[in-house]
């Protein structure tokens, strides 16, 4: 429960109370970290990205609109951080390929996916292009409304549903293709 609304805290951050970033970090870093881990399958990288998001929240605090919702703004920054990270990697290898080919990192190992279905789902998800992976993870976040997500992607709710439908079908293809080769 958040009786002290995030937007109000953010208003104080933009008015110079940078120390209140700790409160926003405490509230939001776990789901944001989970989002990055499920996207990148790399725990240490997810921590770096997560930290960068909150530092950007501090830096860009003046651009936060009074009265607007904090969480969609936070995840917009998260998407930008990820896009910048991919941009930096581009001369060497695209992030999608790196994800699929890389050995699991120590952080990812620690995730210890308990059920075989969940493990297969994670693998199928990793085979999707990053933008579809990101869309599916955000669309399954109960804290986001369809309207907020559509705002995040700059499209109508109808167009968002079509994108999710396509991403889901791609996920299904990978999930069951993977199942067929399993003994």
């Amino acid at each position, binding site marked *: *429960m958040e*009786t*002290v*609304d995030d937007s*109000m*805290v953010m208003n*104080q951050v933009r*008015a*110079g*109370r*940078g*120390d*209140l*970033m*700790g*409160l926003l*970090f*405490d509230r939001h*870093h*776990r*789901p944001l*970290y*989970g989002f990055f881990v*499920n996207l990148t399958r790399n*725990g240490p990288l*997810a*921590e770096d990205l*997560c*930290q960068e998001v*909150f*530092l950007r929240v*501090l830096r860009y*605090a*003046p651009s936060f609109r*009074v*009265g607007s919702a904090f969480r969609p703004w936070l995840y917009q920054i998260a998407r930008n951080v990820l896009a910048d990270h991919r941009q930096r990697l581009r001369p060497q290898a695209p992030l999608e390929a790196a994800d699929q080919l890389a050995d699991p990192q120590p*952080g990812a190992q*620690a*995730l*210890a*996916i*308990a059920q075989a*279905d*969940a493990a297969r*789902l*994670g693998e199928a*998800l990793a085979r999707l292009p990053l933008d579809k992976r990101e869309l*599916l*993870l955000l*669309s*399954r976040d*109960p804290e986001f409304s*369809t309207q907020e997500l559509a705002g995040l992607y700059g499209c109508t709710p109808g167009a968002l*549903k*079509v994108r*999710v*439908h396509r991403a*889901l*079908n791609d996920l*299904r293809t990978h999930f069951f293709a993977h199942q067929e080769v399993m003994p």
Partner: protein
Amino acid sequence: MSCQAFQEHLLSGEPLPGDLALHGAQCAQCQEVQRLWESLRELPQPEPSAQFTLRFHQRLATELARSPQPVRGGWWLPLGTAALLLLSLGVGLGYLLRGNDPHLDPVQARLQRGSTGERLEAIAQVSTRSVGQGDILSALLDRVQRDPETQVRLSAVEALYLFGAEPELSRRVEALLPGQERPEVQLALIDLLSALRQQRATEALRRLVREERLSPAVRHRAEQRLGQLNL
């Protein structure tokens, strides 16, 4: 077309209308998609490493020390502050007109005498005020100590983060710990103390872990926080 309509409807989270439910019952592909859609919510939610929070707070402190944030923003910033101030004044005036004690700050009055909902609302209102109002800080500490509702106590602890710059806050939070009988509030206070990152917090946590009657969960959290502070 039915498959697309069925799968697009999943995003809404609303119950399927009759025709789509019928389609879903007969279409193996849509059942598979629905199963995957539901499984996506069950994906593991990993926890960051124990050092991550500490590293972030250290980095934040460096960042703040390097470039203390000036009051930035355009012409809308003073307007926003003024709007919040007017809101506070409006609520306060409403209380005075309703015949409450005119000598008592309206927020304090609601914190002390309001219903559970009014007390929670008053705590939320604190974040719209300028920091440094000692009476409000005392009222919040009083709620943490005495409020009959755990929910209100926890909200008051959360609001105390806004007073992090108060030099005496750590000592006053520490003073609340021994008398606090509710484990979830104890945990919230430990988190607050650890966020304050002051020497007094370390001392308070050391004293707390020596307490024999401490519940295992509280002891574990206190030891964990102490380990982070000592790094």
